[in-house]
């Protein structure tokens, strides 16, 4: 890897954003809205919005009026206050979906949230105007953009990315809106993060006011972690050009470093004028060459790329011979971050490679399973008894496989269906195979500890998920049962929890034959055995869904049968108790199951 040069593509991405015309397009929508409301000035702060439909796209623009100044955000009623998601839970639960186990809480700027809440009643009607076949742009002016951002966030919950194209939320000089909790919630799903594009001029103070430590939180409760953090991509602008940045630490540093204090705290309408100029300027400039002067020609491409980006955002003048105005540290820092990004992407390069390695482990496992079968005990009971050297080997493979699948399920869960990651059939097939093969061993360990009710109380999450996903993809049963019947000997039991049912049945038997159990317990056990377990086993056999290994002489299932037979003999189940399953077990016709010659009515 290291013999290859790396590159930084922020400048090219910024150029694509500009040349694609989305900035121009979305700014035009804001301007239209602005011209409409210009007449009735000086109302109290309120949100306006407008939906405009074009042949291939829908644009929703938000506008707050009157346009607000830097002072408003800082002093106008505690503009930097945050509202925590736990407070919102009752009053305004629209963003609850962002909370997860690993990231349970986040906070949003209070002023922005209040503005958004003021249009709460209009949300359904706004949403109904979105046409899924078109691309969607959401935009607004400074505080209106906070509303646009929150609106986009709210939409994300209901978007199915496998059928809908990602919306794009473009803001012009928007203040930061949330804390690191919000940042983490969005960053976790790269697709979500890619929906946000923030355009920031080097002259605009507003996007910078909420950055600590220049504006430390006023309230005491706000700790150091409770400060504003950026998310999405930032397109930083200066007269020399523009560049795109994604890393949040870099963004915070660059936002501060590039501020030229051009506007100060003057008429907020100037901010509007400023972005009009910027968009028009960039639009013209996109076909012009950049004015990068002399760099040391031995500078490697990544560093060169970063330097010309910093030149573009106005942070430095082109300098010959590596005189970088003392920005060397910053350049090196960005360089390191970019390198890490590329590397982490490179690692996840080929998931099928690891899957194949895991399949090799499964092949070993399958082999051990076969060996146990030949010993007449079955791998479930062999493992449960922990008697042989091979069982220790099995633990090793089990650990590797469980570790892998736990991780895989975690990863897949992080990207819920919303993020549009349909599982590859091969992947789920391997997962199902793993579940059917390995889960019995977890069950064995569980009941060895003397615990009860594995299915409801002990079952690990990754098994539940894998089963759930299989159910979601399952097609109607095929008509190949004839063949399935013939080959039942070599297949795995389909319900990976089969052995848990057997263990529960044995516990029921124990309760029934014990003198200490209450009548209630006995009745329940009877019910469980007859109505649940017997029917369960019978239906599995009918559909050839259980491996004939369960009939191996030393298996737990056969032990259960011995215990049950004894109970029946004693008449505990009632005089001359009879059922299809007991009949089948008594006359030993189950022996024909493995060869597919057993017919169950």
């Amino acid at each position, binding site marked *: 890897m290291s013999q290859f040069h790396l590159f930084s593509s922020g400048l*090219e991405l910024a150029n694509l954003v500009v040349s694609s015309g989305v900035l121009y397009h979305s700014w035009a929508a804001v301007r239209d809205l602005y011209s409409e409301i210009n007449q009735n000035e000086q109302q109290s702060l309120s949100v306006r919005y407008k939906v405009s439909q074009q042949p291939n796209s829908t644009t929703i623009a938000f506008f707050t009026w009157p346009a607000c100044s830097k002072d408003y955000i800082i002093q106008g009623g505690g503009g930097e206050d945050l509202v925590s998601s736990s407070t919102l839970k009752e009053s305004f639960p629209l963003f609850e979906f962002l909370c997860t186990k690993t990231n349970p809480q986040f906070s949003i700027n209070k002023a922005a949230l209040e503005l958004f809440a003021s249009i709460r009643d209009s949300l359904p009607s706004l949403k109904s105007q979105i046409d899924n076949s078109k691309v969607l742009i959401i935009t607004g002016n400074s505080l209106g953009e906070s509303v646009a951002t929150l609106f986009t966030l709210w939409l994300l919950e209901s978007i199915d990315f496998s059928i809908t194209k990602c919306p794009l939320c473009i803001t012009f000089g928007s203040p930061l809106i949330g804390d690191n909790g919000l940042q983490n919630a969005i960053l976790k799903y790269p697709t979500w993060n890619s929906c946000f594009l923030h355009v920031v001029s080097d002259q605009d103070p507003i996007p910078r006011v909420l950055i600590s430590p220049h504006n430390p939180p006023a309230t005491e409760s706000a700790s150091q972690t409770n400060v504003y953090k950026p998310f999405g991509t930032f397109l930083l602008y200066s007269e020399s050009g523009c560049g795109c940045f994604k890393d949040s630490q870099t963004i915070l540093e660059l936002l501060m470093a590039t501020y030229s204090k051009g506007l100060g705290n003057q008429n907020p309408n100037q901010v509007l004028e400023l972005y009009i100029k910027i968009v028009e300027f960039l639009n013209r400039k996109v076909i012009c*060459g950049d004015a990068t002067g002399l760099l040391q020609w031995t500078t490697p491409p990544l560093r060169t*790329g970063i330097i010309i980006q910093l030149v573009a955002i106005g942070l430095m003048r082109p300098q010959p011979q590596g005189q970088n105005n003392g920005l060397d540290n910053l350049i090196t820092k960005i360089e390191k971050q970019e390198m890490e990004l590329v590397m982490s992407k490179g690692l996840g390069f080929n998931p*099928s490679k690891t899957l194949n390695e895991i399949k*090799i482990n499964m092949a*070993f496992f399958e082999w051990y399973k076969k060996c146990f079968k030949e010993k007449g005990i079955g791998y479930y009971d062999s493992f449960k008894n922990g008697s042989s050297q091979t069982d220790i080997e099995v633990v090793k493979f089990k650990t590797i496989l469980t570790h892998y699948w736990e991780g895989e399920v975690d990863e897949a869960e992080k990207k819920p269906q919303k993020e549009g990651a349909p599982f590859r059939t091969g992947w789920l097939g391997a997962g199902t195979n793993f579940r059917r093969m390995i889960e019995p061993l977890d069950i064995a360990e569980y009941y060895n500890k003397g615990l009860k009710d594995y299915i409801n109380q002990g079952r690990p999450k990754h098994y539940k998920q894998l089963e759930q996903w299989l159910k979601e993809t399952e097609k109607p049963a095929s008509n190949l049962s004839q063949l399935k019947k013939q080959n039942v000997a070599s297949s795995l039991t389909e319900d990976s929890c089969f052995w848990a049912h057997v263990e529960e049945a044995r516990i029921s038997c124990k309760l029934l034959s014990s003198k200490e159990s209450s009548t209630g317990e006995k009745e329940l056990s009877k019910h469980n055995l007859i109505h649940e377990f017997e029917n369960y086993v019978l239906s599995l056999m009918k559909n050839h869904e259980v491996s004939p290994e369960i009939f191996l002489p030393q298996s737990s299932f056969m032990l259960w049968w011995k215990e049950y037979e004894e109970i029946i003999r004693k008449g505990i189940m009632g005089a001359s108790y009879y059922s299809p399953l007991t009949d089948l077990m008594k006359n030993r016709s189950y022996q024909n199951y493995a060869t597919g010659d057993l017919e169950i009515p």
Partner: protein
Amino acid sequence: MASLKVGENKEINTDLIQKACSLAVKAHSKSSQKSYILEKTGGSSYVIFSFPGYWSENDWYDGEPFGETKINLDLFPSLRSIGIDEHAKVNKAFQQRFVDKISRNQDFIKEVEKAKNERKQIVFTGHSTGGSIAILATIWFLEKYWRSDASATSPLCLTFGCPLTGNHIFSHALRREKWAPYFIHFVMRYDIVPRILLAPISSIKQEFQPILQFLNPKSSRASTNTPPEALNFYMNVMKNASSVASHAACKLMGNTNLLLETMANFTALSPYKPFGTFVFCTGNRKLVILSNPDAVLQLLFYSSQLDNEAECPDVAQRSLQQHFSYGNELKDCFTKLDADHAVLLESLEKLPLSADSTTTSSDITTINAALKDLGLSTRARLCLCAAGELEKRKIGNKNSIDLKKADTAMKYLQEYQLSCKHQGLGCYDAFKIHKSDKDFEANVNRLELAGIWDEIIEMLKNYDLPDAFEGEKEWIDLGTKYRHLVEPLDIANYYRHLKNNDTEGYTKKGRPKRYRFTQRWLEHAQRLPAGSCGESCFWADVEELRIKTSSKEGYAPFKDEVLQLEEQAMKWINDGVLDKDVLMENSTFMVWWKKQPDPLASCINDIEGFTITSA
């Protein structure tokens, strides 16, 4: 005789280039009835076919926003991505023009065959859209004559100010077939024509008519002044070219920001991509030559970019005028042709990123001067460098394939196959029963190989391997050997685990891409119809028929399929592509086959050395 070096070991006579150039322009002005003109020249060692251009909007954009369509695979069977099995795209109007006027033109075919039989160097040439016809004619020649007749003289295609013609698969396929070096495209620094198709018709609709009017040499122009629409036309085409170049550059640079994908939804990007060798004329008697398609795409944008806004009107005019200056410019260039005037850009990844004058290396000074003449900024140089780096990285990916590991696994499986045979059971059946330690070891080796090959397939799907990969004999042979040896084990595994129960038959749903791809490689290399090399799926066919004939309907409805399978088996065994172990007494095939009605009448009995043992 002077010549122009356009690549390693490839030089072209400058007289021929000039001759072709003047003929290409001449083709336009001839009476409009003629769809090509023919000239024998160079002491009759060359035959030059030149094609006229066309100048109505429909001759450029027919239908789609960028006027592209699927390639006609009957005429151009190689123009696809083999493993992925995706067709190339080509400009619809150009292809239609070629089909209507050239490929069915008996006179043309006769002349081409005559020249070929006389072992002359055939040169196809064209100016403007005529160049696109020349390109298609060249590929048609390569497909029709060159592939089957290795002794034929290689053709040459020279275009001047020619629009882009095909998409990335078009370019990929020509490089895979090693045909790309036969195409030399001359492009003036500001000539707008080679860039037009980077813009969708919607963005230039207003200006396109008057611009075409101006570009058409046949039209009676009022003056030589450029039309007033030139400015907007130039800006719109360039804006789109800029989108395409930036999007491509992000990809070249290994961009990690998903915003790129989101942006792709918001902007229509041209599908066209260059191929072949490009000779950029700087306009001051210098030539810059390169053949990396990614780099050429970047150059198409950057070389005609503005230095500053003020020069826009001027450049817009030049962007039209330069379309007619190839003859003069090349004449000027060739009168004094030395190393400083024709710069070959090869190791792009080592390109100087800045026009730093501190170096004393004369090579770098020359390259710097040439890049400066094309107006390339540091940003542009970074893009070229990234294009070179990507090429290098693809080669690196190929070299990183663990052949040693694959070889060890293959050797094990070959021994496994032999030892199975010694024990009286083919490896398919032995593996399916899976009884001994050896079967287990074989399974591990099978999975090792699957890992290696799946990785190769994944890289091919992302075009992360060199374009030539799927055409390299070494890999085709290796793939075929792998497929013959290991696919039966995959099939055995599939039916052993009854995967057909969950999904469908192996060939329909279960067959891994690593076998589908390698089969297509072989079929393409040997020019066989798709699906004809399915011998490695023999066992799956057997299993599926076994299931079918065991159903209630019995043998009768599947008689034809059974007969077909028998015939194929015989052919494959006689051709030596299917191992004879399928005929072993206890094989799944024989056990099933003997149960069919009247096995003695079957053609299986005709297989040499086959004797049926009584069932």
